[in-house]
């Protein structure tokens, strides 16, 4: 997995609540057997019209935000399905960090597995960053994972929380499966015990 240490990039504002996974990546793009190449389909139905032309109003189509690396959004971001195509598309587009007052559970987990940092902040802080993000190409934020801070264009700093284990994995680009297989012994003893206690499973 790619490491995530420090990120300085343009933040795109998406002041909507309940941005769901069908919006992030509509199902017609789930028919791939690969993880890559989904960025062109990110937010497809909001980004392109029926003929495949860009809808100029959509935030990621505006010149200032075409290279956004950070997304600032409303409550309950990523609700809906478990499709990991959603974070794959976000990452493939070039976005490495999403900031919102709350996230849906599965999406939140999926981000960490793909080197994306989802940050939960109180509504006031999100409102302030949304304001910053609306300043177009001046909307540059710096996310420092080690120190758990976000610095805005005017130099102000906001601290954020992140689970210690997940932070460690992101900072070091650690692969979960490799980490778990180090505990193969514990899994095996669990299986032996469970086979006695619940042999019907």
């Amino acid at each position: 997995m790619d490491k995530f240490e420090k990120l300085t990039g343009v933040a795109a504002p998406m002041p909507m609540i309940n941005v769901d996974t069908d919006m992030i990546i509509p199902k017609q793009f789930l028919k791939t057997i690969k993880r890559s190449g989904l960025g062109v389909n990110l937010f497809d139905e909001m980004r392109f019209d029926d003929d495949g032309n860009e809808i100029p109003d959509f935030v990621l189509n505006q010149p200032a935000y075409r290279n956004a690396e950070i997304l600032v959004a409303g409550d309950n971001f990523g609700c809906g399905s478990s499709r990991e195509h959603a974070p794959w598309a976000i990452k493939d587009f070039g976005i490495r960090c999403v900031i919102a007052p709350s996230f849906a559970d599965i999406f939140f987990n999926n981000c960490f597995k793909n080197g994306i940092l989802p940050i939960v902040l109180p509504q006031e802080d999100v409102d302030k960053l949304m304001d910053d993000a609306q300043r177009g190409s001046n909307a540059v934020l710096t996310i420092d994972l080690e120190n758990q801070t976000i610095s805005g264009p005017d130099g102000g700093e906001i601290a954020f929380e992140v689970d210690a284990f997940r932070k460690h994995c992101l900072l070091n680009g650690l692969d979960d499966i490799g980490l778990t297989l180090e505990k193969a012994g514990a899994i095996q003893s669990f299986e032996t015990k469970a086979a006695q206690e619940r042999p019907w499973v």
Partner: protein
Amino acid sequence: MSPKTLYDKIWDAHVAHEAEDGTSLLYIDRHLVHEVTSPQAFEGLRMAGRPVHAPDKTIAVPDHNVPTTPGREDPSNMTADSAIQVAALDKNAKDFGIHYYPVSDVRQGIVHIVGPEQGWTLPGMTVVCGDSHTATHGAFGALAHGIGTSEVEHVLATQTLIQKKSKNMKVEITGKLQPGVTAKDITLAVIGETGTAGGTGYVIEYCGEAIRDLSMEGRMTVCNMAIEGGARAGLIAPDEKTFEYVKGRPHAPKGAQWEAALAWWKTLYSDDDAHWDKVVTLKGEDIAPVVTWGTSPEDVLPITANVPSPEDFEGGKVEAAARSLEYMGLKPGTPLSEVEIDTVFIGSCTNGRIEDLRAAAEIVKGKKIKEGMRAMVVPGSGLVRAQAEEEGLADIFKDAGFEWRLAGCSMCLAMNPDQLQPGERCASTSNRNFEGRQGRGGRTHLLSPAMAAAAAVTGKLTDIRDLT
């Protein structure tokens, strides 16, 4: 010992390792796999040269994008990209030696219907699948939830998941339901009450008289939509109905093993003074037949209500409601019972079981669907389909003008050719009314099977109580 909730008990029985900060390796008893969220996981295993850790506990079935029309065993009758995903699953199941139900098998169907039907889902288990509606299996008192593809790969490789424990939430539905009110109305009413993020961070246990009174099918409908309320999982404590349903299923324990299992299953309930982090109580008699009016499952109203106005809401919801109404093409103040429908979809893992088809057939029996209406019934599995044919339900639907399809997810997510056209309005028994969910520009109203059947007959959203 301190009192525990049902969730606490299942969790404790499955922790294979716990780190100091509470990050745990949770052992997984059943892993269900389908064609859309698994190819990248198997590819990952191949690249790392890893086997499937417990192929015996892994069950695969194609459901999400398969056509529901005859002749689908022949891949040339599928769209090219669907055929590739199904072929990948065929191959992965074979190469890695996992249980498999191909489209040609009568037991094929939606993964969350096949699991319980075949007895793979049992009380007290941990069950995961790369699909958010895995919560369905919670109806058996199993801890069941959706996972992403990286986690699918993790479970395939290690039979565990890295998890932190969620909080406990109790949703109690007291008393009796009114006539015409179903499990679907309960689960939608709960989401209407808590919002789509109300359950985030929690595992819900549904309890109370109205839940106890539900059949296993109804309980599955309720748990199915726990995820729509944001919860990681929904659970119902197992009881005699559960044991009765499980007994004799192909993969359920038999003989002495059955007795041993039963003894443990009977300990699976929340202790009287267990701690709840959040409690929501609804009175069964207050729940009406409901429909959704917007593009979020929390946009729920009784069928007797009017389309709301954005001003009825606060905060971010004002703008969201305006956007929903625009997308749905609805005017505030219009009675919901006057909203005209052009498509009806009866099926999905929420409402594609035999009881759902019976409820719908009872409404359409001897009637015709409204002229110009497209209506389809997609049974949740080949076995549900066969049973419905045997009971004469299929003929009732066909005589009324419904299409009678083969099993699959179909128009629940419209990954196969069953899709809405832009602007088409659908009464659907599925679980998501997101923008574009059933086809780009399509408009979805979620409701119960009986209400969907009523809409097919009248051509409008209809109060089922006016029809019976």
